[in-house]
């Protein structure tokens, strides 16, 4: 199922949640909607689900306008951040609900429903827990139930609203892989909302970054990380040191820091340098190391320039010993945006 969002607008009171958003989602794609809270990502997801209706614009499923179709008619699977399980039903009944409420000849018979439920429990690795109530499950297990409940109706698109937001870090990681595995096994077009860039980059085929109700950039995880098209994306995706400065004659400068900025007109600008893009360089500027700490295979170095700018630098563990006392460094790569 391909999904097209065409200049969708939505306002809550005087506050615009979506501002002429355009988005094309390919069949079988796993797309992340990434943005800070209040960026409109959840509103966009709910507009696709039919839980919210846009003030203007269109939502198309396979070219068919479904802008005002009810959630029930769209055949979407929706997974909520707080699971939204039916707590008075067993796990099996929860999963069967979408099939059980069908009417007439669309409704599979009991044996078929039971078979589907078993199959889905197996898919999310919850075999044998069908008779439990949601209150008897852990958070991660509940979210798996919610996922299989959404998949039970064989949705044309699977929508997940911050699906891992309420879970602790370990469960979150394993469930992420699980979602990727389930997506690859079922091939269903999937869109999930997150404010966690790590999650979006790890899981998604493409990432759409939202800010203030607009899409700032859409691209593969590599593209949005390595070639951020706006200052916001650069600051939001991945770690970055931010510098406010001036561009003149194709060169950006902020205190002791100088960077090439070809093609930018003179004036105020913002530069971002990733921690791993700083390197020791005798022709570079001076900084004093304040602290260094281990982070997996890397060492994170906190340094401060003579004019008081704080830097975060990533270096390999082997190189780390050389980051001590006063050092000279330069940026190998930087992203400069006109303010």
């Amino acid at each position, binding site marked *: 199922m391909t999904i097209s969002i065409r200049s969708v607008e939505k306002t809550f009171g005087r506050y615009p949640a979506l501002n002429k958003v355009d988005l094309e989602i390919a069949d079988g794609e796993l797309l992340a909607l990434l943005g800070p809270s209040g960026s409109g990502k959840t509103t966009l997801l709910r507009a696709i*689900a*039919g*839980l919210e209706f846009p003030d203007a614009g269109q939502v198309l499923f396979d070219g068919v306008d479904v802008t005002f179709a*009810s*959630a*029930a008619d*769209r*055949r*979407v*699977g*929706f997974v*909520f951040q*707080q699971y*939204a*399980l*039916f*707590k*008075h*039903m067993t796990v099996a009944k929860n999963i069967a*609900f*979408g099939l059980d*409420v*069908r009417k007439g000849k669309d409704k599979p018979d009991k044996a078929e429903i039971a078979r589907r439920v078993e199959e889905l429990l197996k898919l999310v690795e919850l075999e044998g827990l069908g008779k439990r*109530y*949601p*209150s008897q499950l852990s958070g991660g297990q509940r979210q798996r139930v*919610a996922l299989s*409940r*959404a998949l*039970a*109706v064989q949705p044309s698109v699977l929508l997940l609203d911050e699906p891992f937001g309420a879970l602790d870090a370990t469960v979150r990681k394993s469930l992420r892989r699980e979602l990727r595995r389930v997506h690859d096994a079922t091939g269903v077009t999937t869109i999930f909302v997150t404010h966690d860039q790590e999650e979006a980059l790890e899981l998604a085929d493409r990432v759409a970054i939202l800010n203030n109700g607009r899409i700032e950039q859409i691209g593969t995880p590599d593209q949005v990380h390595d070639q951020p098209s706006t200052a916001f994306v650069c600051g939001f995706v991945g770690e970055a040191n931010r510098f406010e400065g001036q561009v003149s004659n194709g060169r950006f400068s902020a205190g002791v820091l100088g960077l090439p900025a070809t093609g930018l007109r003179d004036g105020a600008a913002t530069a971002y340098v990733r921690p791993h893009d700083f390197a020791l360089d005798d022709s570079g500027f001076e900084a004093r190391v304040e602290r260094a700490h281990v982070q997996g295979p890397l060492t994170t170095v906190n340094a401060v320039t003579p004019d008081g700018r704080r830097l975060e630098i990533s270096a390999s563990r082997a190189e780390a010993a050389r980051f001590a006392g006063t050092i000279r460094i330069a940026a190998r790569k930087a992203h400069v945006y006109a303010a």
Partner: protein
Amino acid sequence: MTTADAASGPAAPPPARRPFLRRRSAIPGFGLTMGVTLSVLSLIVLIPLAAVVLKAAHQSPAEFWAVATSRRAMAAYRLTFGAAFVAAAINSVFGVLTAWALVRYDFPGKTIVNALVDLPFALPTAVAGIALATLYAPTGWVGQFLTPLGIKAAYNPVGVTIALTFIGLPFVVRAIEPVLRDAAEDVEEAAASLGATRLDTILRIVLPALAPAWLTGFAMAFARGVGEYGSVIFIAGNMPYKSEIAPLLIIIQLEQFEYARAATIAVVMLTVSFTMLLIINAVQAWARRFD
């Protein structure tokens, strides 16, 4: 310093005594609250009830049985428990609707409606009884429209049920309201996204989740109805065998100085009420099995 002194060291605290009747807990106040609870419960509830039972025990078992199962008493029990049950059932339907309207929607005058719901709690029940009797009497504002339809709504069991419905409404509304307010919207959205119609969502998701609170409201309205006296006697007509409630029968026995007989009927009501409340509690525990 001798070696004996050194060996004894600082005096070891005596081993703590295991607390009497309770588990160790960091939550304070067990002794005080439990003590006050038991004292008050004894003074207000248990001792008076025990006295009633004692009074009834002044008779021989045969006498007791004869009084307890006399035709007049049986008719009174039937009316009291039957009308209380029907009234509680009516309230559990309209109570849900009222709670739904109060929780889910904003409308002008909502605070007034909200206060009106509580009125049966506060109004002297005799006032309610007189007002209802006046309204539903064959010549009353409401009664005059019912009479041509062949419905007699006062001075008979229907009148009793009307009075008990009035008395019981707030119990159901107030029991359901908080649960309905806490019910998460996303659960209903989940049902809709799975293809459920609005009716499906209400019948299969919203109402079952309300069941325990609903039963609580029903039980309280029922219990209140069984014990109600003040409002009923004005609208009931109080005809022996027809529209005489058990509490009234007790009063009548008292006025004739038949204390043991009055106590006998009281003991029967007590036993039936207590049994029914126990059963309802058990059903409730079952309905809460998913919590």
